[in-house]
């Protein structure tokens, strides 16, 4: 199969510029938020908006330290904890969902049950209703079982939330594989465990990465469940962000933008590391065996 446009820069300049322009349009809101994070309060609220200004780190310092009005000294905020919570909760639950989803989807793909498709459909139904519909029963269940406000409560919920997505996505990657390779490995003396870990998993690493990143982005930005089911100790960044909106002195846009900017970094970092895998993952089915 001929591989056209394999090297970077083989597309013409016209196409490249056009793509660049579209990219800029998409990126502009993010760019503006990052810019705002470096603005003083008057600069952030200035009309017409300022593109050029003297940058300041004050907002970023403000994320972690706040001047107390009563004592006049600066005081550490809990934002560090919230960032830790977001990272810990999102990575753990998405990781767990990926492990469960990979095992389950391998079973669904290779050892189909009677009514396999029905099971798969049922698994997906949990994602069909808007979360707001189930939030009250879930809240009551969490209160009753004592899971509300704990790490494991919210991790459990996010894991359950991500499993259907993982199963469906990873199953499609397993389905794409040539099962003959597994049979060949069996003929060559590989055990079932070896077939799975040494022959199947390496072939779908790209797909697993893609699934992980998509799940991570969803979970990272989740607000509703986090708002109701996390406690003071387990609060995540989106919830903390929302709380900065309601001050007596109005919205501090610079502070908010600084939190958002910091909030972008971990996701950006993960996506960047997995970039190559991701591209292969999302184009998985389009490659000839």
């Amino acid at each position, binding site marked *: 199969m001929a591989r056209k446009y394999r090297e970077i820069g083989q597309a013409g300049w016209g196409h490249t510029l056009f793509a660049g322009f579209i990219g800029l349009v998409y990126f502009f809101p993010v760019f503006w938020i990052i810019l705002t994070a470096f603005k003083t309060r008057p600069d952030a609220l200035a009309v017409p908006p300022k593109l050029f200004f003297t940058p300041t780190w004050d907002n970023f310092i403000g994320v972690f330290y706040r001047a107390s009005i009563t004592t006049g000294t600066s005081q550490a905020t809990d934002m560090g904890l919230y960032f830790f919570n977001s990272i810990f909760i999102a990575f753990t639950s998405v990781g767990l969902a990926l492990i469960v989803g990979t095992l389950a989807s391998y079973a669904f793909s290779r050892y189909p049950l009677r009514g396999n498709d029905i099971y798969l459909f049922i698994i997906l139904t949990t994602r069909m209703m808007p979360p707001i519909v189930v939030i009250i029963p879930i809240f009551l269940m969490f209160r009753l079982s004592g899971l509300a406000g704990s790490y494991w409560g919210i991790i459990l919920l996010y894991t359950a939330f991500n499993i259907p997505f993982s199963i469906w996505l990873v199953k499609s990657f397993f389905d794409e594989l040539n099962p003959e390779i597994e049979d*060949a490995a069996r*003929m060559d003396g590989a055990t079932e465990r070896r077939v799975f870990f040494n022959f199947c998993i390496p072939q779908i690493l790209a797909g697993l990465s893609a699934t992980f990143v998509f799940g991570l982005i969803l979970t990272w930005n989740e607000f509703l469940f986090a708002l109701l089911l996390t406690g003071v100790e387990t609060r995540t960044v989106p919830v903390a962000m929302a709380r900065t909106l309601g001050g007596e002195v109005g919205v501090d846009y610079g502070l908010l933008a600084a939190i958002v900017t910091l909030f972008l970094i971990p996701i950006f970092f993960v996506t960047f590391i997995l970039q190559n895998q991701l591209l292969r993952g999302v184009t998985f089915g389009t490659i000839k065996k």
Partner: protein
Amino acid sequence: MTIELRQLTKRFGALTAVDAIDLQVGDGEVLCLLGPSGCGKTTTLRMVAGLEMATEGDVMLDGKRINDLSPRQRNVAMSFQFYALYPALSVAENLAYPLHADKLSNSEIETRVAQVASTLQLDRILKRKPSQLAEGEKQRVAVGRSIIRNPNCFLFDEPLSRLDVQLREEMRGEIKLVLQNLSRPTVIVTHDQLEALTMADRIAVMRDGRIEQVDTPHNVFQTPSNLFVAGFIGTPQMNLIAAQLKDSDSHGQANFIFEGGQALKIKVDPAISRLAPGSKVTLGIRPRNLKMIDEPAEDSLSTQVDLVEPMGAETLAHMRDGFQNLRLVTDWRVPLSEGNKIHVRFPPGVTHVFAKDETVIRRKS
């Protein structure tokens, strides 16, 4: 080493994929399982390999029942339709993989890989990954991986189906050569009759999970045991014409009447005398056996050329007289064109007669 299948059966739910087949493959023998897709030939192969469990019946290797052994314990080598090369491993590593479980030293493994690589001319591509190989090279690596061990038998699943015509002919010869040097029973699954006819010592023709006939390529072609085998083997397909037996004698002289009223007096197998006059039969004659003649005769049919297909050295003519369709192959020099009224002769002894139950009418030889 011998393989023997006894009443081997595989059912998937209500579907019977393989229906109580009996089969033996001798030491050094190459047996082809030939049949249309879905006839159970691959399932049979996979049961021999141990990748599929038999529902009933036995798989015997050298007289020992191996139904419950894992593929590895059976020590059989199998090559797959899509080659099934390990994508992350190089050609050399692919070849060496089956040896790992044998606990050989590294130098031994290297020697074996080098041996196989030189047999199959893979020396120069040992470091490449499967994705960098041409189809023919992938096929050779797959063959190499199955012969690198010293297995009890060899199994090939549609070994040439992915290659283009030219490469297929080349590889057919190459595989045949490799197999001749390995005195082990070999089973090849194919839906391509040419592959089966050229490579096999014996062919087992399968349909709907049953074996219709097992015999040498020559016999399967010359003396098909039933209507299905007759129609399945040979290109262009054998002419199969419905007829009614008028009378016959003990020497095989028989008179037939066709729909439309034409009559034919030909010599067929003497066993025809078993059939009562008036029996409905199917006559089978290969397109290459039909002869064009100038004047109608008692052993000829009159018909009209409907379509002419030049095939190079030969010409294939389709004919119809409003009731029967016939195919005839003649030398390319014979002038033929659509609309020609011609007479085709059935030479003595080349017409097969099939009874109503589709079995051939033939004396046991």
